[in-house]
């Protein structure tokens, strides 16, 4: 069996809070997780859930209170582990007196490339993230989106097998988001492991092999996005129009009016009964479709229940 790309065992982080009387606040609570080699793994959670803390722990920027983690078999304390990773922090900040080209050249120097190889890489990655035309502009003149692109370029510049991205879509316009999605797809195609945090759930649904939901520092569930969605109780959505001059019958008063149309969501068991009622009042049925709960629904439900961990999902965690 191959070594997982990322192994996290009971990782916990406490921060001291308060000025005079310091007390500890738990930011990450006993996180245990494995991410397989080549997997795109989404880390979901609201602000303050512990996503960034986890990423900072994995990249050695902060130190765990307890627990361990390994990346490609190397402990996170081992500086050699850093050769295996690329990291994009949330809202990345760079040396603003450098140009994008100088910045990438600077970071490439830490990977011992020859000068020719370094220059070639810098040009290639500037092009990849769409910064070729702004290569000689100082970063202090960059927009948030451009900084994000520079951040992504520096994270993948040295072809790391494991890439950590903290909110990679943050600050990007729809085109930028699409480009980042393409980059993540490319990384996956190249067999790299991508571990990224996000609160943009549609991105996670589109990109991830598996996702984990974190709330208040605790892992709420892990699984493939479709597994998580499929465990939800499905509902049915009916769109219909009433004949002109005919009022909505009291039995269907729950229907929501959208212009001339109405939308009604009913449990699956009540579908035929509801359709019968609609036929009786000569309503024109436009569509009937199952409501597939999105990851967002799951996410909100999990976050709402964060104080009571979901045992039902424990089996899904690897």
């Amino acid at each position, binding site marked *: 069996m191959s070594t997982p790309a990322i192994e996290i065992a009971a990782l916990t982080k406490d*921060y001291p809070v308060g000025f005079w009387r310091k007390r500890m606040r738990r930011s990450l609570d006993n996180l245990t997780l494995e991410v397989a080699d080549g997997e795109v793994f989404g880390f979901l959670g609201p602000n303050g859930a512990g996503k960034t803390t986890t990423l*900072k722990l994995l*990249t*050695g*920027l*902060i*130190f765990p209170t307890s627990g361990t983690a390994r990346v490609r078999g190397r402990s996170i304390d081992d*500086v*050699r582990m*850093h*050769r295996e*990773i*690329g*990291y*994009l*922090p949330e*809202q*990345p*900040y*760079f*040396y603003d*007196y*450098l140009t994008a080209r100088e910045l990438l050249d*600077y*970071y490439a*120097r*830490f*990977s*011992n490339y020859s000068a020719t190889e370094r220059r070639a890489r810098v040009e290639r990655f500037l092009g990849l993230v769409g910064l070729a035309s702004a290569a000689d502009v100082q970063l202090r003149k960059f927009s948030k989106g451009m900084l994000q692109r520079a*951040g992504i370029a*520096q*994270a993948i510049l040295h072809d790391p097998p494991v890439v*950590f991205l903290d909110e990679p879509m943050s600050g990007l316009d729809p085109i930028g988001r699409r480009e980042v999605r393409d980059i993540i797809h490319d990384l996956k195609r190249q067999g790299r492991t991508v571990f990224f945090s996000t609160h943009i759930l549609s991105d996670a649904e589109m990109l991830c092999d598996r996702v984990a939901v974190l709330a208040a520092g605790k892992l709420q569930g892990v699984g493939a996005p479709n597994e998580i969605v499929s465990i939800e109780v499905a509902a049915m959505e009916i769109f219909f129009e009433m004949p002109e001059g005919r009022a909505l019958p009291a039995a269907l008063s729950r229907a929501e009016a959208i212009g001339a149309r109405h939308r009604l969501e009913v449990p699956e068991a009540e579908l035929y009964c509801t359709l019968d009622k609609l036929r009786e009042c000569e309503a024109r049925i436009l569509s009937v479709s199952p409501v597939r709960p999105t990851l967002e629904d799951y996410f909100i439900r999990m976050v709402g229940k964060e104080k009571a961990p979901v045992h039902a999902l424990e089996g899904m965690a690897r």
Partner: protein
Amino acid sequence: MSAMPGIVAINTFREAVRDRVLYNLVLFALMMIGAAILVGQISIGIERLVIVNLGLSAISIFGLVMAIFIGVGLVYKEMEKRTLYTLLAKPIRRSEFLVGKYGGLLLTLVVNTSFMALGLAAALYYVGRPFVHADAWIPVAIYFILLQLALVTALALFFSCFSSPMLSALFTLGIYVTGVFGSDIREFGEFAKSPPIKVATRIVYYVVPNFHNFNVIGVVAHGEAIPVSLIWQNTLYAVLYVTLVLVAASAVFARRNLK
């Protein structure tokens, strides 16, 4: 030896070079040296003494200002601006980062001091006095100033690892002033009747770097020679002290959680 500190040092130097404040400081120091010429001209017969004295003092003071005010922000600024996040995710040890930052600022100070030294040489040349044998000790005095700056930078970097720039500047300046008057403080302790004061002043004398030995400006201005043994002694002292402070800084920074 790892190339990592060198990479960080070059970038630190580039940051300083692109910082306009630095140019203002160098310009101001050169103006001070220029002013020394004017003062020298009205100091009949002691032109050389005045120019060398004021020139070397200007180099020392402005070097000190740069060492403290850039040094205290070396690590703190990287933490505050979060530029450290991407850097420390690269295969670089925290100690290598610190040594690199230190080396970068030292390189900046060497370059700036060299410019100011050239300004002083130009001032001496301008007053139309041919260089004399005693002037050969001026570079030694400048070398001692650089050793002082190396020590001050190391202290500023050390404080920068765990406190704000304001406090770091105060601590560094405090240690510098104490170090300049180290011998006087010890003498005061010896005269004191209270044994705790005696012990405290001795501790201060031995723990705080002795900056007094690096100050040969007056000696050089009077055209006197500097003993070669003092050059070795000061070099060794500075290297050892800087190493100790950098090791301490690395120990503090090694387990520091970034915000």
